[in-house]
């Protein structure tokens, strides 16, 4: 049944892909038309203004030359023309050449890189220009635009100054917006896919699943239960019709049974009726009175869009916050610029850790639905606080409030999955969340960079706020509290300490869990965005670079669980993935370029997804082996605590390293540390397996 359902889902996934593909093609066509128009408008505007600027530059040369002519020095006798023109050329990057000609167009002086083939154009121009009142319009010579200026003595022309502008300059200005257009289209593709997927799941796939469930039970001649209807969509209303059929049949049978009870025992038909009724009872399953109401299947995939929206809101801001915080460093007397840059991330992690218990307490009291409202509401409030002013304190308060909201909603997400999901759905939910993170980073980070470059960081917070508000609205419509399963065992301090004394758990936490989360908070939220800016990239380019992280996560997320399943329980996947990440970080020392950072981001994304999946599997298998003492979720919760400690410490440690060394040195040190800890982890497992072999012998 599950296989059939998942193949049905796959069919609808291909429908969604088809819609999105057509949608993207249409938008691409429309954007191309707008872009082509923009290119022409931009070209005309650029050319006009560059001409004006070039005229201004040319005018200063023209003035000097005319001054010399007024002093009686003929144009061709003026000394030092070439070096003067070369100096002027260096001052203005837009100008590709300067040429001084006489009134007939013969070249008197020119800067380097002027082709001889231009001579003909200058001569033709000189012939066509008769008086100083003739209009001097720019004209194109090969790939350059030429702006002519007239040098006159009194009322007659004695020469021309030609200022050349390379068309590549204009192209570069225009092409900078091309990448931004691609980013916006990509963001619309991803966001469109997420919303369509969400709509299909809620309006078609899940109602259809519930409908099919109702059809199946009635097809098996089971009329004892009806589906609970919570939505009023088209397909759910069909489930209601099935319910009505079942209710009518049960009502009919009930009334017949009452009539049967009223029959006299002497009635000739009483035995026949009893026999027929018994046959009906045997052939069909009936309700005893009112049919039992079966709640709808919980929609775990609803959490995907919620996760996407919230991670999207953070992905828009995370790469840009360190540089925003750095501008306040003069106002803080105690911290260096690097530490000030790390404060928003650090505060976020601290408050996120401290508010973990809050979510469980809230959701137990008021239910998941209201807890999600609280979480997303706090996130939206945190973003809106930034609008109240410009100060480091306000930024930190904003991040703290957002962190509490994040923690509350993230833990609520995990508890929701624990409460309602089957084991298979639980694994899928981790994969779903990883894909949501990947999608969010694919479109959030570059969109954030683009918006910051154009409207500033403060107004970019508005987009993040809108995403949080959208999450609230979606929760209101689609997230409901249903009947829960048994809750898992709680982690108490005594049990936590005992867990920590288990060598395998302690080694996993110290050598793998804690460092990896430390790395995540340092690299993604802090180091890489600042490093990319340091390498000369604009905010838009930083955002596009962080997109690589999202794309890599998105690609690897469906495969990582399968890979881990195939090599079930092996610690070597954890070791190899950590080794890869550490090595790539160290190799940056030799390249120190944007490309090496991009490779680092891609390898880190792949490595982290594989690492997390493999570590979860290892911990779960340990939990299974010790299930008489601990549940799997207790072991995982213990591990998550240390992960969060790593996320708090990461930015602080990185900022201290940055204060003492360069970006590439910091990466090298962090990579080396990962390799050393990884080597210890590997050694432990080698000794453990050798010990096991000796024991077996």
């Amino acid at each position, binding site marked *: 049944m599950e296989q059939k359902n998942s193949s049905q889902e796959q069919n609808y996934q291909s429908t969604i892909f088809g819609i999105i593909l057509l949608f993207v093609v249409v938008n691409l066509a429309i954007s191309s038309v707008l872009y082509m128009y923009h290119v022409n408008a931009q070209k005309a505007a650029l050319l006009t203004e560059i001409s004006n600027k070039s005229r201004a530059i040319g005018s200063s040369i023209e003035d000097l030359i005319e001054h010399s002519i007024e002093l009686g020095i003929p144009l061709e006798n003026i000394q030092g023309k070439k070096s003067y023109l070369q100096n002027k050329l260096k001052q203005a990057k837009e100008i590709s050449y300067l040429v001084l000609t006489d009134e007939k167009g013969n070249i008197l002086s020119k800067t380097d890189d002027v082709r001889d083939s231009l001579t003909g154009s200058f001569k033709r121009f000189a012939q066509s220009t008769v008086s100083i009142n003739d209009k001097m319009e720019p004209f194109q010579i090969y790939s350059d635009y030429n702006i002519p200026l007239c040098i006159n003595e009194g009322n007659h022309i004695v020469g021309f100054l030609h200022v050349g502008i390379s068309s590549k300059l204009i192209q570069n200005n225009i092409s900078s917006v091309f990448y931004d257009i691609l980013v916006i289209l990509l963001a619309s593709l991803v966001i469109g896919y997420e919303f369509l997927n969400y709509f299909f799941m809620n309006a078609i796939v899940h109602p259809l699943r519930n409908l099919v469930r109702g059809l199946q039970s009635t097809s098996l001649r089971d009329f004892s239960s009806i589906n609970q209807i919570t939505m009023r969509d088209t397909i759910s209303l069909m489930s209601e019709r099935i319910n009505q059929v079942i209710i009518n049949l049960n009502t009919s*049978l009930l009334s017949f049974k009452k009539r049967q009870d009223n029959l006299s025992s002497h009635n000739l038909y009483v035995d026949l009726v009893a026999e027929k009724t018994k046959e009906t009872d045997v052939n069909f399953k009936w309700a005893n009175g009112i049919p039992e109401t079966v709640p709808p299947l919980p929609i775990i995939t609803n959490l995907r869009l919620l996760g996407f929206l919230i991670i999207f809101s953070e992905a828009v801001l995370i790469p840009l916050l360190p540089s925003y915080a750095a501008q306040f460093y003069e106002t803080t007397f105690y911290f260096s610029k690097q530490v000030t840059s790390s404060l928003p991330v650090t505060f976020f992690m601290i408050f996120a850790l401290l508010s973990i218990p809050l979510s469980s307490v809230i959701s137990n009291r008021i239910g998941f639905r209201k807890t999600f409202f609280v979480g997303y509401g706090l996130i939206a409030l945190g973003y809106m606080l930034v609008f109240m002013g410009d100060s480091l304190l306000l930024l930190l308060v904003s991040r703290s409030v957002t962190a509490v909201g994040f923690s509350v909603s993230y833990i609520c997400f995990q508890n929701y999955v624990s409460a309602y999901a089957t084991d298979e759905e639980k694994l899928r939910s981790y994969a779903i969340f990883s894909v949501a993170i990947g999608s969010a980073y694919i479109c959030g980070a570059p969109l954030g960079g683009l918006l910051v470059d154009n409207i500033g960081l403060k107004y970019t917070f508005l987009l993040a706020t809108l995403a949080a508000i959208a999450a609230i609205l979606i929760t209101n419509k689609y997230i409901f509290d249903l009947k829960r399963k048994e809750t898992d065992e709680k982690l108490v301090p005594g049990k936590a300490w005992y867990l920590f004394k288990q060598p395998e758990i302690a080694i996993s936490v110290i050598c793998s869990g804690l460092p990896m989360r430390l790395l995540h908070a340092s690299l993604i939220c802090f180091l890489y965005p600042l490093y990319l800016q340091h390498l000369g990239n604009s905010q838009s380019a930083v955002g596009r670079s962080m997109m690589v992280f999202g794309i890599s996560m998105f690609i690897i997320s469906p495969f990582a669980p399968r890979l881990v399943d195939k090599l079930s329980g092996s610690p070597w996947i954890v070791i190899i993935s950590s080794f890869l990440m550490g090595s790539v970080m160290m190799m940056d020392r030799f390249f120190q370029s944007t490309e090496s950072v991009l490779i680092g981001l891609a390898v880190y994304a792949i490595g982290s997804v594989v690492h997390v999946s493999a570590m979860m599997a290892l911990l779960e298998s340990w939990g299974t082996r010790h299930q008489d003492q601990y549940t799997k979720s207790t072991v995982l919760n213990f591990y998550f605590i240390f992960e969060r400690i790593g996320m708090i410490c990461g930015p602080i440690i990185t900022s201290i390293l940055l204060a003492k060394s360069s970006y590439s040195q910091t990466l090298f040190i962090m990579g080396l540390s990962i390799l050393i800890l990884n080597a210890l982890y590997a050694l432990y497992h080698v000794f453990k397996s050798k010990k096991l072999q000796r024991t077996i012998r």
Partner: protein
Amino acid sequence: MKINIRILIILSTISVLTICLLTSLMHFRYHLTRTNLVNERLNVSIDGLNRTLTNNIKLGIALQSLQNVEGIIKHIKEQDKIIERIEIFKIEEGKLNTLFQTDKETIQDNINTLAMQKIKGSKGINWFFSSENGLTYVGLTLRDPTGLDRNAIMLSYKTSFVKAQEHEEVMSLYKRMLFGILASIIASFFIARRSTKNIAQMLDVITTSFDKLERNEKKFDLSGIQDPIVRGNLRAMITSVLSARQSLKGIETLLISADKNTPSGKNKK
């Protein structure tokens, strides 16, 4: 609401937002590029003055003792019609004190503050900002040999000058945006209709089948349902319900006969 209408709403919303964002981006970039070029052109205008003043600073000559500076800046203003005024300042105690200016109007405090912020915040010597009074200010910081910011030149022009130049093109851009939005909504309509054809057909068949079931009909055509799971289960469900009804009908028939068999009066055990 029909499924294809809801898909149309989703696609249209995203399309409209995308196209609006694209158009705003293009408009913004166009405006920014044009403004930057105007500012750079104006910087060129004061470039000659900048070199003269910088050379004097390097020679240790105080700016206020220079002759004919006001004449020079008035000449520059006359050369370029868009320039409203030019001023040369001395930076003292975090404030700009006017040394020379093209007209006698005093600089407003908020402009003074904004200019100081830009001087402190800019990485290079060039800076600009727009103010609420409809003027854009373009400036250049003069640094002394020790690298400290000691003096500044600032000129202003009406922001509406740039806006007026780009007005026609921006209006055309937004007209095209509206056409683009209309085209995308029409395209989304056809995409939604085409994509949900099978689903709509399936729902129609299911609805018709339920209607027929309610009317106790026996003939059902489920060929319109492409999904084999739904088709198979619906067929089995219809068979089961009809069978149950048949069974209940049998009981009812017997009960009717039983009722006819009872003597007139009540049926009692």
